[in-house]
């Protein structure tokens, strides 16, 4: 329990402390320190869970499913903090951001991590909602950190769309609570996920089905599912790059995590009716639509950060589709894909941050010849995109291969759609990538001080996961698969 409390509440302490620290250099290091502390506690917590089984009590519920996301969140938080320290100092020197706003940035960075970890570990579905909404509130001012008209517009859109979406999710949560009051003996436990899961077969199926529609639309807005995805490219492209990395790598995962948790409840409630798989079918539909539409949109992008935001929508769609199929193989693939996508995408955003500093713009047309100007950044971009496009031997290939096999097993005719989407997305990424990496560098383009350590660490991990998943990790993911689907894969 101690490890859990440290992991979750250290970032909250960080948010409060960093709001008071005036020195920019110190704030950067403190930010890093808090993230490192939180990661250490998260790893400790994971070891406890893997040895001793689930941890439930005091309003928290930690099992193999969410503890792996906790470690992932803390890890990406730390590497992004390592990247953010020199990057934001550079931005601040350029005069784009005042010192007061840097304080806001560091404080809210920690605040965002706190809401993410709280959403993952809480047992109370109401607190889950509060935390996800809190994540919007923490990041909305960071999206408009540069105060350009574009960034204010992006932040407004983000605020309104996610606010509306999440409001619908609250309506769904109220309906779940309503169903619980007629099913559970102890009404006070009506929002506790573990109590609801234990009594899921007694929940009223119709109420739960209606609730799931609201929950899917609500949390789906945050996942970035088409047609509710409009805020995502704007918020990612206009905010500071470290924010894009954590939004894409963490926030989307946590929203999808919420959807999957609710799907487990709804599946339990609907198991005995003739519409047992309705939740899964809804998720498959939304997921496949997002996957295909975002893949096509990749071709139309001119802004490098928007390009990779659409790639995030595409991958989130694929994961939603995977969890929708259900079954151990698809779920295992989905869990693995969450992991490798987060690592790869945050590595890409970090590289993109350096590339935009070199080129001085986010417009793809003007980012040229990265590999000549600064080989580390060029190679980072090339390998990152190769990994995210699903090239072997990277981990994304493994998880996409698992997903394709699972689709072929249960919905053979959908495999064509998946393959088509993968090819379209692949082409969309590489037609933009090639000139950016190999094109002719403009006169006088200078390298910048870039810290590629986080990128190398992430891509190294993804490569490792692609070549050989460690036994401990595959057991771990298998345990999570068992929790979600009720049967083991391995």
């Amino acid at each position: 329990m101690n490890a859990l409390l440290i992991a979750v509440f250290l970032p909250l302490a960080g948010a409060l402390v960093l709001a008071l620290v005036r020195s920019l250099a110190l704030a950067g290091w403190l930010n890093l320190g808090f993230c490192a502390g939180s990661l250490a506690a998260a790893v400790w917590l994971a070891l406890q869970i893997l040895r001793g089984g689930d941890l439930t009590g005091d309003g928290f519920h930690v099992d193999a499913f969410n503890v792996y996301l906790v470690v992932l969140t803390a890890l990406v938080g730390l590497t992004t903090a390592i990247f953010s320290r020199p990057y934001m100092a550079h931005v601040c020197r350029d005069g784009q951001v005042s010192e007061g706003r840097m304080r806001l940035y560091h404080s809210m960075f920690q605040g965002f991590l706190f809401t993410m970890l709280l959403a993952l570990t809480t047992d109370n579905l109401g607190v889950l909602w509060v935390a996800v909404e809190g994540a919007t509130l923490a990041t909305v001012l960071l999206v408009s950190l540069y105060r350009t008209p574009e960034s204010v517009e992006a932040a407004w859109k983000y605020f309104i769309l996610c606010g509306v979406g999440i409001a619908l999710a609250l309506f769904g949560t109220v309906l779940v609570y309503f169903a619980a009051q007629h099913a559970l003996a102890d009404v006070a436990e009506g929002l506790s996920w573990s109590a609801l899961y234990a009594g899921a077969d007694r929940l009223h199926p119709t109420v739960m089905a209606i609730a799931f529609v609201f929950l899917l639309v609500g949390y789906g807005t945050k996942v970035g599912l088409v047609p509710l995805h409009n805020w995502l490219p704007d918020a990612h492209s206009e905010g500071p790059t470290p924010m894009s990395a954590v939004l894409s790598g963490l926030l989307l995962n946590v929203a999808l995590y919420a959807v999957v948790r609710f799907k487990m409840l709804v599946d339990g409630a609907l198991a005995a009716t003739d519409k047992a798989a309705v939740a899964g079918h809804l998720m498959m539909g939304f997921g496949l639509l997002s996957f295909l539409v975002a893949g096509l949109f990749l071709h139309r992008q001119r802004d490098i950060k928007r390009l990779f935001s659409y790639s995030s929508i595409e991958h989130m769609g694929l994961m939603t589709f995977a969890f929708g199929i259900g079954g151990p193989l698809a779920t295992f693939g989905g869990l693995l894909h969450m992991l490798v996508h987060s690592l790869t995408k945050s590595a890409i955003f970090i590289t993109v941050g350096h590339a935009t500093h070199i080129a001085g713009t986010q417009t793809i047309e003007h980012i040229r010849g990265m590999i000549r100007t600064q080989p580390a950044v060029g190679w980072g971009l090339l390998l990152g995109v190769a990994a995210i496009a699903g090239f072997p031997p990277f981990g994304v290939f493994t998880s996409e291969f698992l997903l394709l096999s699972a689709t072929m097993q249960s919905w053979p005719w959908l495999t064509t759609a998946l393959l088509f989407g993968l090819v379209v997305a692949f082409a969309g990424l590489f037609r933009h990538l090639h000139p950016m990496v190999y094109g002719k560098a403009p006169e006088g383009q200078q390298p910048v001080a870039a810290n590629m350590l986080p990128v190398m660490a992430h891509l190294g991990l993804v490569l490792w996961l692609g070549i050989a998943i460690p036994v401990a990790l595959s057991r771990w993911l298998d345990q999570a698969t068992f929790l979600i689907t009720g049967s083991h894969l391995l």
Partner: protein
Amino acid sequence: MNLMQLTLLEQAVFVLAALVLFLSFAMLAQARLLAGIHVFAWQGAVLAAATGLVAAGGAPHLFISAALTLALKALLIPWMLHRLVRRLELERHVEPLQHPALVLMAGAGLVIFSYWVVVPIERLELVTTRNILSLSLAVVLIGLLIMVTRRQAVTQVIGFMSMENGLFLAAVAATHGMPLVVELGVAFDVLVAAVLFGVFFLHINESIESLDVDRLNRLSAREDDT
């Protein structure tokens, strides 16, 4: 449904819930900014009264949420909006509704739709519950409609906050309120959101020199002309 079978208290809650929906329609049709804020404040007050009545009917922990609602939704947030409107000199701003007949018809359609959605829940004994659930869903959807049909940032925020009112009504009437920790969390989120909206009015006003959010279109334009 027979209203006479309900106790007096339940009937009163019912009437207040209907009044909340009525005020949503008033907000939908209101062209003047300040009047819209006042209607919103009244909706908060009616909601607090409904919560208080449910609390008196045997759920004493709801007195806290009733007090919170009254303080936040009926007093603090309207006061903040009022102050911002005066600061941005928008007191006399009138934003006539485009196609009023159509929009109000759509509002009525949403009410019918809400009843239709909630019909399957009718088999669960409580009659009041079902009706109040559909009323609150209608309030949520009309809040959404306000946000879609209006272009003024302040009106959009009013729509957003009235959606929250609808959610709160659902929680109070259908389930006798959420657990206290959740209610406090939601209230905190709403308060922070209200403050942030205020900050955004100033930023938007600074960047496009008006609060007409239709003019926030640089990013959409960026995608269209590719």
